[in-house]
């Protein structure tokens, strides 16, 4: 089984630390993958609201390339990339018209059936015991609110992964790191997503609600697996503070970063210093651990 890696645009830019920490962590855990040669944009939000053909073709181009490269699975760590790839693949599979159209556009025939997996599936599949075995840092004081956002487990009929309304796969991974996963209400609520740029006011309110609910349920860190969510929840805290002066900076980590910390890695090595909210994560979390 050969894993293909589709980083997507975010992981090469605004979510560089997600890419860095993913590579570091998988390397440590002995999970190998190959980056898809000449991959291109998945189409993201823009393509599928602009042109249906385009959105299917952009996503399918990457799946096609992975197939040609002899890969069996594609890891798409970005929730939006994952969503675009799996939905397009599903459309092509189930609608002969769309299939034909997309094949004609790309001048290929789709033969290989690749499985698209998200970041949670990757760690669940490769075995949580690997994380537990290689744990170096004590994280028992970490109380994580696992945030899935809207795309990671939806649409349920297509992703066929976890429970769309009450997902719990990220909690399992978090618990494998030795951290505690809190039960909270906003796991799958929307952070405002791409409105980050056009309607910052909406994003600030929605994202603040998420952070507040995490705090209300005793969390001391928010764990995410989506670059868009991270941007809204981390970067927009400054604007949140302007609107709600009582707001206090709250740590938001990528799942891979949390795993990296539990494996004893350095914050800088994991790219955590690239976050907007300035936190000495290891220190803060360590202190919490010490306090119990």
């Amino acid at each position, binding site marked *: 089984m050969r894993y293909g890696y589709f980083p997507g645009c975010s992981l090469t830019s605004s979510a560089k630390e997600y890419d860095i920490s993913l590579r570091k962590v998988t390397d440590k855990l002995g999970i190998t993958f190959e980056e898809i040669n000449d991959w291109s944009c998945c189409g993201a939000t823009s393509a599928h609201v602009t042109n249906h053909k385009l959105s299917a073709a952009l996503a399918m181009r990457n799946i096609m390339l992975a197939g040609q490269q002899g890969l069996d699975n594609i890891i798409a760590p970005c929730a939006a990339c994952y969503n675009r790839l799996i939905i397009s693949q599903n459309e092509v599979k189930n609608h002969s018209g769309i299939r034909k159209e997309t094949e004609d556009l790309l001048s290929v025939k789709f033969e290989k059936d690749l499985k698209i997996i998200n970041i949670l599936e990757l760690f669940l599949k490769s075995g949580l015991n690997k994380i537990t075995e290689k744990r170096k840092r004590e994280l028992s004081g970490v109380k994580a609110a696992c945030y899935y956002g809207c795309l990671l487990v939806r649409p349920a009929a297509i992703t066929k992964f976890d*429970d769309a*309304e009450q997902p719990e796969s990220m909690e399992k991974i978090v618990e494998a790191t030795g951290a505690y996963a809190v039960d909270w209400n906003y796991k799958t609520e929307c952070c405002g997503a791409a409105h980050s740029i056009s309607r910052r006011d909406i994003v600030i309110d929605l994202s603040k609600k998420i952070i507040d609910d995490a705090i209300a349920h005793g969390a001391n860190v928010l764990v995410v697996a989506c670059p868009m969510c991270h941007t809204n929840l981390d970067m927009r805290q400054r604007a949140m503070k302007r609107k709600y002066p009582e707001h206090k900076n709250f740590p938001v980590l990528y799942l891979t970063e949390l795993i990296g910390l539990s494996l004893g890695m350095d914050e800088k090595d994991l790219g955590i210093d690239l976050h907007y909210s300035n936190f000495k994560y290891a220190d803060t979390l360590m202190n919490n651990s010490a306090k119990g």
Partner: protein
Amino acid sequence: MKIGVFVCHCGENISSTVDCLRVADLCKSYSGVEYSVDYKYMCSDPGQKLIKEAIHKYDLDAIVVGSCSPHMHERTFRNAAVSAGINPFMVEIANLREHCSWVHDEIEASTRKAIELMRMAIEKVKRDKPLTKINVPVTKRVLVIGGGIAGIQAALDTANAGYEVVLVEKEPSIGGHMSQLSETFPTLDCSQCILTPRMVEVHQHPRIKLMTYSEVERVEGFIGNFKVTIRKKARHINEENCSGCGLCITKCPIKKKAYNSFEEDLAFRPAVYVPFPQAIPNIPVIDETVCTYYKTGKCGMCLKVCDREAIDFGQKDTIHVADVGAIIVATGYKLYNIEKKSEDSIYKGYGEYGYGKYRDILDGLQFERIASASGPTSGEIKRPSDGRVPKKLAFIQCVGSRDDSKGISYCSKICCMYTAKQAMLYRHKVHDGEAYIFYMDIRAGGKMYEEFVRRAIEEDKVKYIRGRVSRIYEENGKYIVKGEDTIAGMPVEIDADMVVLATAMIPQDDAGSLARKIGIPYDKYGFFNEAHPKLRPVESTTAGIFLAGACQSPKDIPESVSMASAAASKAIILFANDTLEREPVVAKVNEDICAGCFYCMKVCPFGAVEVKDVKDMNGIVYKEVAYINQGVCQGCGTCTATCLSKSIELAGFNNEEIFAEIAAL
């Protein structure tokens, strides 16, 4: 043999795509056909007259009618033939409508197909033999399964008509869900007050044998002659000695180990209990699963306090057999549960409402108990979690119902009404409380129903919001209900103290297994199928088995009661004669060539095949052969197709007849 051929136009249903005149003309040329004619409406009075006159005039022996499906008018044409002196089984129907004109649109081809169908029928009718109806005796006693309002009504009606009734109820008391309700729509009269007199009447009726805490194990036989095996579960109480004083219940030291299912798990009950104070019969049951005596052999408090020696720890289940002529199935419904479901369930739970983890999110029946004067809060509306009076109550309709993604496409029909009622009751009891109802549509069809809903809105100020609820979660002791107001086109958020879900009505868990035991079909949900959705709504497709109440589809009380009376009248009609006439289309074994392999016995879905000894002149058994009970056989033909030695023939559809039809193609 002289055959008459009659080709019907069915108005334009057939003649628009089949050239009926040509069909009739061509049929004249076939050997044996004495007379052939077409007519616009053969089923009409002049049409039937045409057939009768032709039979007399041409001295016909058999007729073929090219018309609609035999399901529709076979009986009509057979009756016409009989009145003209022909055996009804010398009538064949060629289905020119459903099998030809309705499914094709090209005139030439469909006319040719119609001709082929006619030829087949003509060849068959040549080989048909006159058959006579079979007479079977009738046992004039009814089995009613289920002691809810439908079963009670059916039992009372049949018994009052003078027939004996065996009423089987699996719970310790009759009364069903109706006994749990607080007040009933649209009159707001107390449910128990109108129900309990009926329950007492059942108990005291000389012709009703009441078997509570009992279940039907097996049903054998056929219409007029069912043999029913009933398991009476051990109550561990001697029913004859027990006076119903209730001392054992008050003295039982086990107080909080078992949920009270009558109170919808909102309260506990002791190990020895009656479901509710007005239970019929008023005889307790000892619950072995929680009783200390069954665990450790100690305690026996009830034994000590009972001065009538009614406690019988050693009591075992008993098996009873009843002979009945008809069965009325009235097993009712249960409510859909929002809990997380297993992968293979057709239903999905409601993760968005917390999968049942919040204690103040109730279903309709739980709210009934809370609103009921005899309920766990004595009728005061209080939250189960902390006993506070909720000041804001949200009701959500169509939870499960009308939602394919949750597994149910149908409308549960009664929820619009009972939600309006519950909101009204709440407003009557908590004057400063606010009631919100989220709905998709309001379906208030029924006498005084729409007026009732209007009353909730206008007089009791219940706030209706059209839209679905996408999520509920707890925040600081409140339940945040997030939804959409689709009329205002705005998202809504209500911080409710309590939420009541009008969850779907679904069949009882064991509906499917009961249906298989008694041999009636059911749909994918487990609701029992009626024989015809419009014209035979209270009959199952199995002769002699009738349906009443919500076991057939969601129903309210008046509908269940009407259906129960209708089912009772069907049974009474059955009992109007001492013997029953049955169609003679049954299978018969040729004993000379039967090899006794009994494959037929294995495949027969009705259990009609028996073993018969064949004796020689000296009365010594020299072989066993299959014998088909003509009373039980439904004429499905499965045995005929299975028989390896071709020694079974189905009357009216024997091999010669079928092969002749095929050869005519």
